[in-house]
């Protein structure tokens, strides 16, 4: 049973990490908390559902289409809202992204109706991993997460764009001086972050089944806990924090009670912050 709890926790933790890493790169580059982040997760799930249910595509084919749709959506929002947040205060950024969150959530409800849509796709057949049965989709989520984090580490450390991202996160003024196109970096980072949330949405939809407008809310709040625990701006830290949270949630759900599950994220956060005020992996970026 313990092994089961760990594998479940790792998979769920991977989902948290995948969503949160998008938020953490946006936070790093823009210095703003994105209260609407979970809405892109929701948008991803809806886009895939739409592709499967209305266009009759396969689950496989719905994934790239989802990324494309959410990419276009976040291009529009990034252009209209997020780019402008470079110049506004942290507090104002909260209001702006809260507004975007309400907008997206309720637009989805408006378009697709208030009822639950049922997601039909993915690979739910069990497979044996280390002597335990686990749905293929869960294994896939885990593997995709590993690949995405590997790619992100490479991107941020080695690629020119990644260096620009770090540069913007460390000193915006200086980026202007050196001619780094800050708005472009912000926009691309935002699209990257939101499409990762959307990817997470489409990957988990077969497991969460129910698709509805407000499904992103809870995940936004958990992402807050994860990015702070991970040490804001740290990609590896986000993955570790996501896993720790997933496993802790599983353990608490099984041994303490499911009713405490959602409090775990924040109780854990407070404890981690007591122990290390800057999270698991402090990057000392923005203070």
């Amino acid at each position, binding site marked *: 049973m313990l092994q089961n709890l760990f594998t479940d926790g790792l998979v769920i933790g991977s989902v948290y990490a995948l969503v949160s890493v998008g938020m953490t790169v946006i*936070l790093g580059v823009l210095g703003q*908390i994105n209260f609407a982040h979970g809405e892109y997760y929701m948008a991803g799930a809806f886009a895939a559902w739409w592709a499967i249910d209305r266009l009759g595509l396969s689950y496989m084919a719905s994934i790239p289409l989802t990324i494309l749709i959410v990419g276009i959506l976040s291009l529009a929002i990034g252009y209209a*809202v997020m780019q*402008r947040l470079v110049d*506004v*205060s*942290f*507090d*104002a*950024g*909260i*209001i*702006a992204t*809260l*507004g*975007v*969150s*309400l*907008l*997206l*959530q*309720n*637009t989805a409800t*408006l378009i697709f109706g208030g009822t639950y849509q049922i997601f039909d796709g993915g690979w739910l057949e069990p497979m044996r991993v280390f002597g335990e049965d686990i749905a293929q989709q869960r294994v896939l989520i885990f593997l995709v997460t590993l690949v995405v984090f590997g790619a992100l580490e490479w991107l941020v450390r080695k690629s020119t764009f990644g260096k620009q991202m770090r540069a913007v996160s460390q000193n915006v003024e200086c980026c202007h001086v050196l001619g780094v196109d800050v708005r472009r970096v912000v926009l691309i980072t935002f699209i990257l972050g939101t499409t990762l949330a959307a990817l997470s949405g489409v990957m988990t939809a077969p497991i969460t089944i129910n698709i509805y407008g407000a499904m992103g*809310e809870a995940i936004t*709040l958990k992402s*807050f*806990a994860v990015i*702070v625990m991970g040490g*804001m701006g740290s990609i590896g830290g986000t993955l570790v924090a996501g896993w720790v949270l997933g496993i802790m949630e599983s353990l608490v759900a099984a041994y303490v009670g499911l*009713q*405490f599950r*959602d*409090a775990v*994220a*924040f*109780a854990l*956060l*407070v404890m981690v*912050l*007591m122990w290390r*005020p*800057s*999270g698991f992996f402090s990057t000392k970026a*923005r*203070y």
Partner: protein
Amino acid sequence: MPGIAIGGRYAAPQVAGGVLIAACLVLFPLVASSYQLSTLIVSMVFLLPAIGLNLILGYTGMLSLAQMGFFGVGGYTSALIAMHFGTPFWLNFVAACLVPALLAAPLAIPALRLRHTSFVMCTIAFVFIIESVSKNWVGLTRGDMGLSSVPRPRIGLWSDGFIVHTTVQYYYLGLLLCALAVAALVAIVRSPAGRYMIAIREDEILAASVGGRTWHYRLAAFVLSAAFAGAGGSYYVHYVTVISPTVFDPSYTNTVLVVVLGGGVGTIAGPILGSVVFVALSEALRIAPELRMVVYGLVLTTSVFAFPKGLIAPLTSALRGAVQPKARGPHDR
């Protein structure tokens, strides 16, 4: 920082404007429908925790999202005392301010070690933890079933007195409480302690270098803001007569944030304006139930770019311009 000259005297137009607005508010029930009054009552419900948030964010520079947690604690305290002991409203109200304040003090000890985003997240965590307690301490709070039939406020010294039950009466009660809260906020920010708080907002290390006990003042701001939130909870619970863990819903926290930031953080009048405008806006949008929240979201986002310092900023600068027209010349620099 528009709005208030700390320690100084208010300018005549400010006083005149304040008196005029106060008179309008007092006379408003003569012309308003009960629905309009209810809307203002809800504005005032949010204004009380918003004043607390304004103190801690606007005057001390710490963004605490725990306000609605303390609001709920205040509400539960007020309701439980009234239900079990049949106490008059003033006593419930005082208890509703004190209990959250006493709870805030130990919570502040870990939280005050943190700054910026980590602090914000830690305060979000408090709401979740308080919510979890309210859900699972069934013996006290009846958990999710919530407390219902909370007595209406009884205005009396001890055993009897007059019971508030019409909308107009609730409105005047709210007006009185808000007036007290605004007066308390003004008193705090104009006191020497308030000057230290503003100093902390500006630069914490520099504030310490001029002898400010920064930790203590940050603690004081956190505790006082919890007391304001608790006051709001008390007014709320005796108006709605029901309280359950749904008060900890993040959407309430968001409303308080919008009231303070949208109205104008760090000003006395900003959150007052914000509470009226944003609650009224949300109500006005009920004409289009389908689009209501979509439009509300759109308005929030656009308002950030249209009024980056809150709705109050263009208003005060317009007023100031009207009172003392003054052109900037090269000698200002």
